[in-house]
């Protein structure tokens, strides 16, 4: 249970809020790179951290992320023409370059310098991996670009999708570090999903529904480790890293691609879920890519032309009671991503954490909240750079492993938890 003011501190990420300022210390994913694939192509609306912006790529290929609304009379630049040298408002022709600097006001005389006095708020937008990242914070404290392994492997070894989730970012993130739900909610997926099924680890998951938890600090956040009984004298460990503010990885299963998420606040009642799959040492197969594009694994199907999941709250997530009764799915909702999203959205736009009844199995969530509050307060009160800004903190991996009962997962997995180029993931 949290006090109301702490819940508000954790869940509000708009400009000027403590958690909003924390998020503004990091590069955060805002678009898939193929949304702005073509230089000179159409602009795209972006809303993150409760700020509305427009993204575009000029003819030189430079990316821009600027205030969505024209400085003249507040019309949306989404209707604008992406011309040589900038984005021109469709209303009266004011034109802006990728930094937000106005470069032309047609109603002014030919050699007028008035446009030099007009600048929209603009943020840097960079491509790292298959994702476009923005930094909405102070340029003086702009960190180095992200170095998560999913971004740095060759492009044929990685795949990223994104979806709109209609709830606050924190309850979505908390699903990413809440390993105890997997044996229940996703039990069907462990047996059937082409990107999950077949691993030995699944058997351990399904055979031990009462796991034990260990939560350990890492430099960038936490390791949330869950152990289940394996063969005599051994435990099956699944280790989930969380890096502040919103990066989580799922422990791998067999030779399946490794997946994870970046949970990005759109506003306080919506978030983007960037979902990736990658392999450190081999290309994704065509079959794996097809499965991801079709919405299997941690991906999903879409309402055509949008990033809204096909299964959404307006159609009760296409809930199938027969499938639930048969045990094909535990909740009646198809697909691991939508199983999570349906329940997280059902908690409400912003879950009221003053009414929770947490249990010890929620230790990862409890600790993550405490670390977020501490980081936000340290930043606000002392200007302390938070964990996860340093790119060394990005070079981590999730792990699944069977260890003798007497071994410490942290000692045994110290190397396995580090992203090392050319070294295969540690997986069962």
């Amino acid at each position, binding site marked *: 249970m949290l006090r109301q003011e702490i819940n508000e501190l954790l869940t509000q990420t708009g400009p000027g809020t403590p958690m909003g300022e924390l998020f503004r210390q990091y590069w955060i994913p805002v678009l898939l790179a193929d949304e702005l694939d073509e230089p000179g192509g159409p602009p795209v*609306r972006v809303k993150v951290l409760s700020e509305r912006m427009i993204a575009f790529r000029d003819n030189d290929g430079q990316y821009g992320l600027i205030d969505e609304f024209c400085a003249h009379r507040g019309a949306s630049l989404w209707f604008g023409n992406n011309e040589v040298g900038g984005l021109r408002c469709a209303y009266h022709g004011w034109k802006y370059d990728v930094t937000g600097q106005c470069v032309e006001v047609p109603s002014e005389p030919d050699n007028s310098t008035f446009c030099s006095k007009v600048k929209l708020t603009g943020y840097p937008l960079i491509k790292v991996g298959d994702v476009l990242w923005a930094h909405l914070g102070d340029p003086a404290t702009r960190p180095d670009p992200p170095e998560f392994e999913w971004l740095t492997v060759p492009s044929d070894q990685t795949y990223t999708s994104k979806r709109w989730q209609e709830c606050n970012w924190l309850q979505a993130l908390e699903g990413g570090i809440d390993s105890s739900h997997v044996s229940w909610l996703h039990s069907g997926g462990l047996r059937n999903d082409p990107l999950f099924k077949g691993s030995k680890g699944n058997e351990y998951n399904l055979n031990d529904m009462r796991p034990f938890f260990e939560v350990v600090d890492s430099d960038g956040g936490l390791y949330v480790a869950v152990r289940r009984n394996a063969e005599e004298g051994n435990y099956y460990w699944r280790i989930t890293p969380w890096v502040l503010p919103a990066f989580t990885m799922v422990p791998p299963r067999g030779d399946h691609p490794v997946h994870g998420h970046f949970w990005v606040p759109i506003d306080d009642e919506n978030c983007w879920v960037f979902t990736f799959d990658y392999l450190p040492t081999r290309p994704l197969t065509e079959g794996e890519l097809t499965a991801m594009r079709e919405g299997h694994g941690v991906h999903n199907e879409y309402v055509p032309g949008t990033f809204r999941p096909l299964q959404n709250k307006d159609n009760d997530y296409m809930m199938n009671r027969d499938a639930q009764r048969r045990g094909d799915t535990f909740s009646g909702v198809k697909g691991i991503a939508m199983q999570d999203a349906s329940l997280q959205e059902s908690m409400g736009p912003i879950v009221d954490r003053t009414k929770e009844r947490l249990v010890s199995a929620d230790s990862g969530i409890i600790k993550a909240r405490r670390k977020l509050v501490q980081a936000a307060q340290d930043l606000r009160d002392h200007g302390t750079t938070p964990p996860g800004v340093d790119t060394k903190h990005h070079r981590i991996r999730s792990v699944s492993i069977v260890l003798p009962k007497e071994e410490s997962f942290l000692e045994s997995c110290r190397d396995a938890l580090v992203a090392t180029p050319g070294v295969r993931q540690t997986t069962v």
Partner: protein
Amino acid sequence: MTAMTTRPTLLNSCAFAATAAEARFRINAKPQTPRSTRVVALDAGAAAVVRELVDHTWMGTRFLTFDASTAPPVDVAADGRLADIVLLSAEGPVQLSDELIDADFTMMIATANDGAVAATVIGRACVLRGIMTAGVVVGEGHQVDAAVNALRPHARVLLVTNDRNDVAGIMSAVGA
């Protein structure tokens, strides 16, 4: 009708983006740099209008007056050279050319055509420097036809009004 078609308002649609609820997420940034404005009264009546403005709060706007009765004669049709004129500021006489050095907007106020010559000089000087010009003629009907005709070639925007408060209204609106 399927469930999906009952809610076409998607996150990336205008129907969603243009709602009042979404308006609160507009970036709240005020314009940083005000216009650099010169307001020039072209005749005695206009000078009276301008005197009413000077006590308001403006963003660095400078108020100037052209007095045809005391200004040296100006040959506006001369050989292509740019003429200059003397204007009166709060600090005393100033040259138009000095006043326009860092200006980006000049508003000429007239109630009669006494300042036609000044309007020509100011208009040409502003064209040369890429300075936006506006003219406000304060008066009614045919009484101000001559003033309108004098300003028309030299003001990119011309307002004819019998409400002298329109001058302050325009200045406020454009950030003067």
